[in-house]
Structure formats: structure tokens, C-alpha cells
């Protein structure tokens, strides 16, 4: 007796969150891809479940102890898993354009469940996103998914889904006007949190920031996403002109050009000395690492201003985070600056420029340093 056909269709589509997770994680629902066939088509479970071939997904569900809780058999679990997998496969097409899921008539799904389906489908693994963040979302990268899968332990299927999600969102919002986060939310119906994450991913992919270098490995996706948000808010076209095309995706080229003007802060020796004395006077007695700061001030300031001056070149834009870590985070770290001292220093460092009479680019400085200060504080951790 073999089962030829086995289906269950409810008027309200049943969604099992656990099975959905297994599906999203890319575990196979088909008969014996791993366990079954290899051992001659049968895996012996415990006595009650009897002999049954199992798929990866079913094996995982068995391991979760569901059989004991419900008194079901492995065969029941297999049938149930397959039903859910089929449903998810049918839903996947709709999930590619979430507004379709809301308007379609085929599956009757309560709104809260629809939101869950979408949110989970577009959720991604930290480990995976760190691998592709800042990379071009192209076929080339897609070919590397095999390696990423091996490296991260995330199934290839799941990697593909996450990658395709990034790419899909990128394609849709690429040429749109208006706020990036709003556009993503509107077209993919994601939660605010997830939409912000996607904005960061899209922003990084568009500007191809390098995030994979070894010295950047200590940074989490959250760190980058935080920086991305600040940069989108202050450094893009959209920050000055809310009607610009690609406003939130591309950095404001004019602004980057202007940043060259900041060079005077380190090139003009008087200005640099004055700046240093202002900062030192203000912070004396307040910093635990005052002497280190005083000794390092010129190096740090040169580093920060030079990063700004270099941003006219695409290549240097990509290396922004590498430079920031090299020029600022690492020196601080080697001198064991406490985070609070970094904060005090950066605040004073940006504010003191206002007292430099010979310096004319106050607004430019604020636009640059305001964002950088936030980013640097976030980047300063172990």
C-alpha cells in the first residue's frame, strides 16, 4: 500500500509556524533526500512510529518532540509537512510581490497570518547578510552562494531565497522617488524594523561599501545598518532634495566634492594646533585617556579629515568603513579608550571647529561630522 496522493485543503489556509520556519530554512520536505534513500529507503524510528522514510524537515520535527506531545505517527507528520510545503510553494509566487498576497482570492488567510508570512519570508540570517552586505547583487555573487552556504551552515536554498529577496527589493525600489524605507514598506509590506534593515542592505549594495575585510569582521549587521541609516538621512541626495530620483540610494556627489574643503583643518598647521588646544582645554580632567588623546590628536584628526577628502573617489567611498576602523577605531582601541571618552572626544572635536575663526565650512563640517560621530561611536566596540 503506497500513498499516491494525499492532500488537505482548508477554507482558511492552515499555516504552521514551525513548518514555515523549516521551509524557509530550506530543509527538504520530500521523501528521503538525505536519511531515506541512502539507507535503502527505510529509517527505523522508535517502535511506535514504525518504519518510515523521513525527509529532513520531518526528521527535525520529530526531534522537536512533537510526536510525544501529540501522539501522532511519523507518517502523519510527513503528510502534514508535505501539505504545508505545497501550500508554501504556492504562496511563494505571491510572496514575491506581497501586495498580491493581500488581494489574491485563492488562499483565505487572516491578515495577522499574512503579515507573519511576509515578515518571515523577508527575514534574513545575520550570518548570511554579513557575507553579502555591500556586494553587488549580481549573478556573480549568486554563484558564490555555494561557498557562503558551506561557510555559514545555512542551506543553499535559504541562501538563495535571502539573496533573491535582497535583489528583488533592490530592483523594485532602485529608481523610485521618495523615502527608501517608505518605498520598501509600501511595496513589500514589511514591518518598520525590517524595512529599515532592507534600506540599509539596498544602500550598501548600491554604494558597494566594503564590509568583508578581516578587520571589519567584528562589526555586526546592526552596526552597519545603524550607519547606513545615518548616512541616508544626512549624506544622500534625498537629505537636501526630497524629490530627487534615487534620492536615498546615492550619496550626494556635490557634498562629497565639497568635503575636500575640510582638508584645511589638517593642512593649515595653525588651525590644527588651535583645534587641538581647544579640544584639550575643554577635555582636560574629563578624560581618562587624556594624555593618549593629546598625543594622538593630530593623527586622529588627520585620519578623519583625510577620509572626508578622499570620498570623491568611488574606490575610497567603498573603503569608508575600512578607513574609519583603521584611522580611528583601531588607534582608540590600542590605547584602550573607554566608550564614554570616545563620545566626549568626538563631541568636543566636532564642536570646537565652530570656534575656529579662520574656518568657513561650518555647515559642511556639521553635515559630515554629525553623521560620522554617530557612526564612529557605533563602530567602537570589541
Amino acid at each position: 500500500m503506497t500513498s499516491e496522493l494525499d492532500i488537505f485543503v482548508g477554507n482558511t489556509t492552515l499555516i504552521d509556524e514551525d513548518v514555515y520556519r523549516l521551509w524557509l530554512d530550506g530543509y527538504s520536505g520530500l521523501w528521503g533526500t538525505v536519511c531515506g534513500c541512502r539507507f535503502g529507503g527505510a529509517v527505523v524510528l522508535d517502535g511506535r512510529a514504525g518504519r518510515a522514510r523521513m525527509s529532513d524537515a520531518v526528521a527535525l520535527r520529530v526531534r522537536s518532540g512533537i510526536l510525544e506531545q501529540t501522539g501522532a505517527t511519523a507518517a502523519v507528520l510527513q503528510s502534514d509537512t508535505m501539505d504545508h510545503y505545497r501550500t508554501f510553494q504556492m504562496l511563494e509566487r505571491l510572496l514575491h510581490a506581497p501586495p498580491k498576497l493581500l488581494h489574491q482570492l485563492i488562499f483565505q488567510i487572516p491578515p495577522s497570518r499574512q503579515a507573519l508570512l511576509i515578515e518571515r519570508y523577508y527575514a534574513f540570517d545575520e550570518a548570511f547578510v554579513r557575507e553579502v552586505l555591500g556586494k553587488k547583487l549580481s549573478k556573480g555573487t549568486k554563484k558564490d552562494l555555494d561557498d557562503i552556504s558551506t561557510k555559514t551552515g545555512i542551506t543553499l536554498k535559504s541562501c538563495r531565497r535571502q539573496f533573491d529577496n535582497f535583489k528583488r527589493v533592490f530592483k523594485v525600489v532602485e529608481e523610485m522617488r521618495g523615502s527608501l524605507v517608505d518605498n520598501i514598506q509600501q511595496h513589500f509590506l514589511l514591518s518598520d524594523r525590517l524595512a529599515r534593515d532592507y534600506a540599509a542592505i539596498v544602500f550598501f549594495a548600491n554604494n558597494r561599501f566594503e564590509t568583508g575585510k578581516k578587520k571589519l569582521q567584528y562589526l555586526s549587521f546592526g552596526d552597519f545598518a545603524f550607519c547606513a541609516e545615518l548616512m541616508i538621512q544626512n549624506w544622500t541626495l534625498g537629505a537636501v532634495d526630497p524629490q530627487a530620483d534615487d534620492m536615498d540610494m546615492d550619496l550626494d556627489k556635490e557634498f562629497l566634492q565639497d568635503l575636500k574643503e575640510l582638508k584645511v583643518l589638517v593642512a593649515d598647521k595653525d588651525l590644527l594646533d588651535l583645534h587641538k588646544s581647544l579640544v584639550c582645554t575643554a577635555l582636560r580632567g574629563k578624560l581618562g585617556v587624556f594624555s593618549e588623546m593629546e598625543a594622538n590628536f593630530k593623527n586622529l584628526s588627520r585620519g578623519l579629515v583625510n577620509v572626508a577628502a578622499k570620498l570623491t573617489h568611488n574606490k575610497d567611498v567603498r573603503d569608508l568603513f575600512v578607513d574609519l576602523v583603521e584611522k580611528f577605531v583601531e588607534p582608540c582601541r590600542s590605547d584602550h579608550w573607554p566608550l564614554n571618552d570616545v563620545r566626549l572626544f568626538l563631541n568636543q572635536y566636532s564642536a570646537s571647529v565652530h570656534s575656529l575663526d579662520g574656518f568657513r565650512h561650518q555647515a559642511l563640517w556639521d553635515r559630515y561630522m554629525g553623521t560620522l560621530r554617530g557612526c564612529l561611536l557605533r563602530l567602537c566596540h570589541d
Partner: protein
Amino acid sequence: MPGKLKVKIVAGRHLPVMDRASDLTDAFVEVKFGNTTFKTDVYLKSLNPQWNSEWFKFEVDDEDLQDEPLQITVLDHDTYSANDAIGKVYIDIDPLLYSEAATVISGWFPIYDTIHGIRGEINVVVKVDLFNDLNRFRQSSCGVKFFCTTSIPKCYRAVIIHGFVEELVVNEDPEYQWIDRIRTPRASNEARQRLISLMSGELQRKIGLKVLEMRGNAVVGYLQCFDLEGESGLVVRAIGTACTLDKLSSPAAFLPACNSPSKEMKESPLVHPPSHGCRSTHNSPIHTATGSRLTQNFSVSVPTLIYTGMGSGSAGKEGGPFKALLRQQTQSALEQREFPFFTLTAFPPGFLVHVGGVVSARSVKLLDRIHNPDEPETRDAWWAEIRQEIKSHAKALGCHAVVGYSESTSICEEVCILSASGTAAVLNPRFLQDGTVEGCLEQRLEENLPAGCGFCHIPYDELNMPFPAHLTYCYNCRKQKVPDVLFTTIDLPMDAAVIGKGCLIQARLCRLKKKAQAEANATAISNLLPFMEYEVHTQLMNKLKLKGMNALFGLRIQISVGENMLMGLASATGVYLAALPTPGGIQIAGKTPNDGSYEQHISHMQKKINDTIAKNKELYEINPPEISEEIIGSPIPEPRQRSRLLRSQSESSDEVTELDLSHGKKDAFVLEIDDTDAMEDVHSLLTDVPPPSGFYSCNTEIMPGINNWTSEIQMFTSVRVIRLSSLNLTNQALNKNFNDLCENLLKSLYFKLRSMIPCCLCHVNFTVSLPEDELIQVTVTAVAITFDKNQALQTTKTHAEKSLQRASTDNEELLQFPLELCSDALPSHPFPPAKEHLESASSNSGIPAAQRATSVDYSSFADRCSSWIELIKLKAQTIRRGSIKTTVTVEKASPVGEGNFRNRSSPPCANSTVGVVKMTPLSFIPGAKITKYLGIINMFFIRETTSLREEGGVSGFLHAFIAEVFAMVRAHVAALGGNAVVSYIMKQCVFMENPNKNQAQCLINVSGDAVVFVRESELEVVSTQQPAANCQPSCTGGEVTT
């Protein structure tokens, strides 16, 4: 009565890409009705075209209006080659033809293609203007309402139940016409879909005509079926019960005074403006007498049974002579009609007097080509013959009528088994009594004397029994005789006194048969049938005993024929009727008593059986009160098995063999284990596992013993096909396979629905078919309903609470019983003894005993209080209903108002535009009130694929198709303005596959009643919002009547 059909094509969305180059589509629409076709403009390059067409007007005969479906075809315009069809929508405009139903069909319909499935949606508006004309020789029957529901629909009152109507039409099946060998599969499928749509329209019209002839205005329990006879043609047949229905209405002042259930039955929250199509109205129950008088003036040629729609009690209470008189009177009325059959399974109180037992008849026929489709005489004759048999069986049981009647077929190649079954019954001859009787009946009801045992009393003569039976005095009234076991095909009567809960009982059976041709085959089948019937019956009986129950309701025995085997599947709901004697146990006896180890084995089995019975009694809470023998008047008999079934098989040759299923004088509870077969049987008895805790199941409308339904429902269809290994198949192996298939299917259902616990699977409907040599297909449709475990009043014995235990099919009843409770039971003992609290609490909660002792009083007191408050709320709601009426009037006044009304009543879904449509095989929706019936839904779909693997194999293909069918049903209901389908049934699911060719095909036929329901919790809200609505003239269209 010609009419004007108006159609407007508004827009499309989510269309498929038809032009690969541009990734877009140039869509236009063809609207066809009869032979007239209109076209919209081509909307270039869009997947979401906005046609916004003019009104296409069709001037047509009402005959055509009833027969023809509206066909909407969406096409992709192609300048150089033929236009490509995207898909079609068939709209049945019948709901627009009677005034009380829908006034407009408007909404998004899935565009369906038989090869690709659903491809986008189209927004359509359809209206009909009917012109009255009084042509006496008309062929149309516009205005006759159709209901799939097998009871009197909720917002109607039956004035007269006329009786049985049947009709069948035949045609050649396009699939088997020579031209289809050269036509594309799509063209062939569409020809078939169109033809069946046309045939069912025609059938419905013809049935309608018969109803009008009988002076009825509605068909209740309408069941339409297709017989795909292959080469010999296509038969569409339907049966139903003709009735004269009245929209429920009663004056508002009447309401607060009501607290008897029978009176409450009549009241309604609805007032509909007198409708043009309605022929007679009775606005208050007092006027029912006119109804009677009216019918007394009828010509006798159309015998009618008048049912006044109220009262209860049973004639069984009256003495013998009176009973006989009643029977005579009814009989005389009923005997005049050809077939005194009723497709209803639930009846208004008092309608059903006695139930005799199940009657069924089967006949094996050889199909031949239908030569003249206009004269389908053979098929008619076949059915007439079977019905005649049923009638005579009923008569043998001392009954003059058959209720819960249904017909079915099973076809394999050229052999066809026709089956009919029903429950022989004696009905109330109320039409011979005048209005004054009603008053006294009501009084009697309030005294609560008859207490729902009357229907159990035997209708036949004790001294002249049709079969050997063992009778005892009724355990309830002690006055009349009752049988020890009762089998019926109907739902449990509302007023039946039941002890404990019910459960689904199934008998499953396979029999191998030699492959044979034509007559030899038919003979082989008819020879096997009696044995199958016998065995199915024995299984049912044994399983019933094992459950410790004594009656079966909703019995449905299906016998399916295949190439090399026959399958029998019987499903029913077992219950313990308080009126019937306690069933005895099952005893096992061995044939070889000398063998010591064998003896031991036997006693071991016996112990297992006894344990199972005891466990089941506990599980289903069957604890009948102990009755001392003196009271009963006669000794409790040694139970003996005998049959309530009487049937026969007849072959084409008209050779009739009567089969007596009773075991004669043999002590039937003794199972003899004389060979391995019998051993298997006993084993299989014990392998049926009860549902996991928190689950109950039944195949009737409601579960006896559960009445506190909460609102969550989940309707589902599950299909399984298994392939038998062809090697050395034996009957035992087959039986085991089939048994496992059904049991595993049930287990899967319990697992899938585990999140709904505590819940009950209601109306579990199994269908078995043998699509190919070694394939068995089982299709299950059911609904899972949650209930509130904490409020379950299960172990109560007080008089008032007993009434709660009565099974109730009527949602209205759910509301009424608590009212009754609050009016008399609670004041008498508002705070029952603490001991009872303790009992109920400890049975419901898992807290350790030590804790329980301290916490119980408080919690149960709180419980009691909260339910008390709820009762007050309920009462308040009932009183407020007076004001609801106005709302409904507003709703009727303008479509805009109706829209608002609906929006308000549906839960606000944040950004979803698709309204929820509930589907249920039951006639009601728990926790809600059906306010309007919008018309019958009867849809037929074919889906075919030539890329089976790519669509996920057979499972993927069928899964998608069934989901699409649900979607199309929901879309049609929503377009009619409804939010639910009740009495939903999947009548056919024919699946064929050819994996070698990567092909599969499936035909599905579904039906149900589209309705508008309002949640009871929202009724209150609506009524308070009413004044606001009145202030908005734009919403009410100035037609507000209060």
C-alpha cells in the same frame, strides 16, 4: 415572463502575461448569454485593465434565464493570429430571479482556465429586470427558491411541506463525442463545463415547475448529482422536498413575553418588506389556521401535508386507539402521492412522530447508450423502480413516509449500482387538527412531559412485526414499546433525550471480485451485494455495542464498484438514546473449547473488549440512570441483535431477492471465532482508536451533548489515494489497507486541527471511489468547530439543565435554552450546592486535588456569575431585536446601505481588501444568525494538466485545484453580497491520472447555500448604531421605514 439581463465589465487585475516581448497583455472581454455575444474594447498593454464598459443588455426569455449561465471570456488580442483565451467565468444568474435573494451580482471573480487554473480576476456587475406576465403555460419557474439545506432554512417557516420532487435530464457527454478526439483538451473541457451548467439550469427549472404545480414556492434539501456514464452519456438528476415557505416575522410587542422554545422558533429578527414574488404571507402564528383552510380547499389531485411550523410533543403519549387514528388519517393523505419521501434530515418539532428504521434499496444496472436524450425513460424507470421498493419497505415497517431520503450511484465501465436509502417514519398529520390544538400542544410542551422519546416508539404492530425484534417499554415514558437499537439516516431530533456524547462510527469493507464483462459482471456484483450489506451491518452493530451506545443517526452506506473489487463504507453518528434500553456487551465464543491456550486467548480478548466498552462509556460520558426493574414493568431483556434494516437487491432482470439481515433467533452479541476471518474482525474492532482527547467527531449536523460552540470554524477537504500492491490481494489484506487508510486519514485530521482543541469534527463526510484497478480514493469533507470546554454542562441532572442536553440543530435554540434556564432553573437554586461545583471543577481542570479544594469555590462561583451575566446579556439581546428589524429594512433599501451594513459587521482587517467568506457543510454558523439566503451555489469545474510533474505531481495538482474551487465559491458568494456558504457539499471529485503521459484530470462539483450572517455579538452593536444610520439619508436612500 421575459427579462432583461444587464452586464457591465468593470476591470481586471493580476492578469497573466500573454505577450512575452512586452511582459504585458492586451485584454478584452466577450460576454455571452444564449446566442448573443458582446465584446469590450481592447485595453492595451496592461495586466490590470480598466474596461469600464457600457451596460451590455440581453433581452431574453425567462426560460433561458434559468437554463443558461452567463459566460464571460477574457481574451488577449492578437493582431496577426487568433486571439488567445486567458480564461472564463461562468455566472449562474438564478439567485437574481427571485425577489428575496440577491438583487445584484457584483464583485471580483477569478478567471478560470481548465488547463492553467485561476489566471487573474475580473470585476463584473450583473443585474436582471424581470417583467411579470401571467402566462399559464409557461415553461419557466422563476421565483422558486432552492436550498441545499436539509432542514427548514433558518429565517423561514414552513407553511406546508408538500413532498418529494425529482427530475433528471440526460445528454451525450462531449468528452466522448468523436469530435473530441480532434478537439483540444481545453475546448473539450469547456464544452463539458458549459453543458453541465446548462443541464443543471434546465433541471432546476423543471423541478421548479413541478413545485409550482404542487403550489409550493421552494425546494428544500435540493440534491443534484451527475452520473458520468462514459460512452452512454451524461445524466444530471436531482431530488428535493417541495415546500411552501414563509419569511419569518412577528410583531415586536410579542417578543419579551416569549420564553418557550416553540414560541421562540417563530420569532425572527427579520422583517422583509412584502415581496412581489411571494404568493402568501402569514405574519403571525395565529394566522396559521388560514393556511390550513386554504389547503383544505385544494384539489385532491395534489395531496399535501400541512405543517404549521410549531408545537411539539409526540403522539406516542396518546393512547393506542388515538395513535392508530392518527396514522390512518396521515396514511390516507400520504398514500395518495406516488412517493411520500422527504429529503429533509432535520424537522421542526412535532413533525416526526415515530421512526421505524433505515430502508434502503440497491439495484445493479447495465448502461446502454441513451438514444433519445429528450425521453430519458430508462433512467427514470430505474429510479422509479427503486423508489417503489423503498416505499414498500417503509410500509412493511408500518410507516407511511420516508425521511432523510437520498439517492446515489456508483459507476464502473458499463455497470452501475443505483442506491437509495432513507428512514421509514410516521409523520404528524397536523393538517387534520384545527388551530385550537396548537394551544394545548404548547401547554403540554411546557409541562415537558413527552421529553423527546416519542420518535423512538415503534410505528409497527407489536404482534405483527416485520422482522424479529426485541421490544421493551420506553425507558423514558414507560408507556410505549421501543426497539433495543435504532438506525436512522436523519439528524438527531432536537428534542431527543440523549445521554452523554456521540461519536463517529464507521464500517469499512472490501470484497474482491473477478474481472468480468457486461452481464456476467453485473451478476457477480449483485451476488456480492447482500453479503456486503450484511457485513457492513454487523460491523456497525458491533462497533455501536463497543461504544456502549444504542442508536445511529445520519447513517450513510456507500457501496462503490471497481474493476476488481467492491468497497463498502458506512458512516453514522452513534448516540445513547435515553429512551432505548442499555445495550448489552459483546461476548466471544470459540469453536474449539477443549484447547486450553485457545481458551485463554479467547478470555483475553473478551477482557479487552469489556475494557474497551467500559473505557468508551467513560469517554463519551454514558452513565444512564439506574432503573429498577419494577418501574420498567418488564424485565430488561437479554439483548439480541436484530436488524432495523430492510433492503433488497434487484438485478436488471427484475429478480428480487429479499435479504433478512436479522440473525434470527441466534444470540447475536456472541461473536464466534471459528476461523481467522472472524479473528481479524474482532481485531479490527479493537484497532479503531478513539480521537485524541479534546476531539469529538460525528457525521451529523451537531454533536449530541455539545452545545456551547464558539465561533471558530474550519471547513476542509482532504483527499487520499492509495495504490494497492497487486500481488496476491486477499479480502483480509484489502480490508486492512482500507481500514488503515481511513484511520490514518482521521489521525491526520486530528493532528492538523490540533490547534483548535477542544473541538468537534461535524458532518464528517467520507466518499470512497475506485478510480482504477489498484487505486482507492477517499475524499473527506467536514468542518471543525471549537467549543468552550469550561462551560460544558455535561454531568447535570436537574430538570432545567436536561433541556440543555437536548441536541439542537437550530442556532436559535442555542440562544433559547439558556433563556429557559434563566427563567426557571436559576431562580430556584441560584447557587447550587458546593459539591457540584467541586465535581465540575475537578473534572475540568488539571489542578492537584489539594489546591483544588481551596480554589474551587471561588473560581466556579465566578464562572457561575459570568455565565449569569451572559444570560442577562442574551436576554437583553433578544429584547432588543425589535430594533434590529429597522436595520434590515435599511439594508434592503439600497445596496449602499447593505454594503455599509456588511462592512460594519465584518471584523476590520487592516489593509486587506478581500472579505472573509466562511464555508460550512452545516446549515448554521455557530454564534451567528443567518439573516438572508441569497440563493443556491452549484458549480462544476474541470481541471486538466499536461505537465503533472511540473505542477508538483498529483498532490500538487489536486491541492491547487481544490484551493481554486474554494476560491471560486467564495468569490461567487461575495459577489452575491454574502459572507458564508452553508450546507456546503462536494458532491463529486473525480480524479484521473496518467503519470506516464504526465497528465491528470479532475472534475469537481460543489454546492451550497449562499447566506448573509451576522454575529450575535454584533447584533447588539448594529442595533445601537441604528439611530446613526438613520441620520444619513444618503445611506438609506430615503426609504427608511421603522
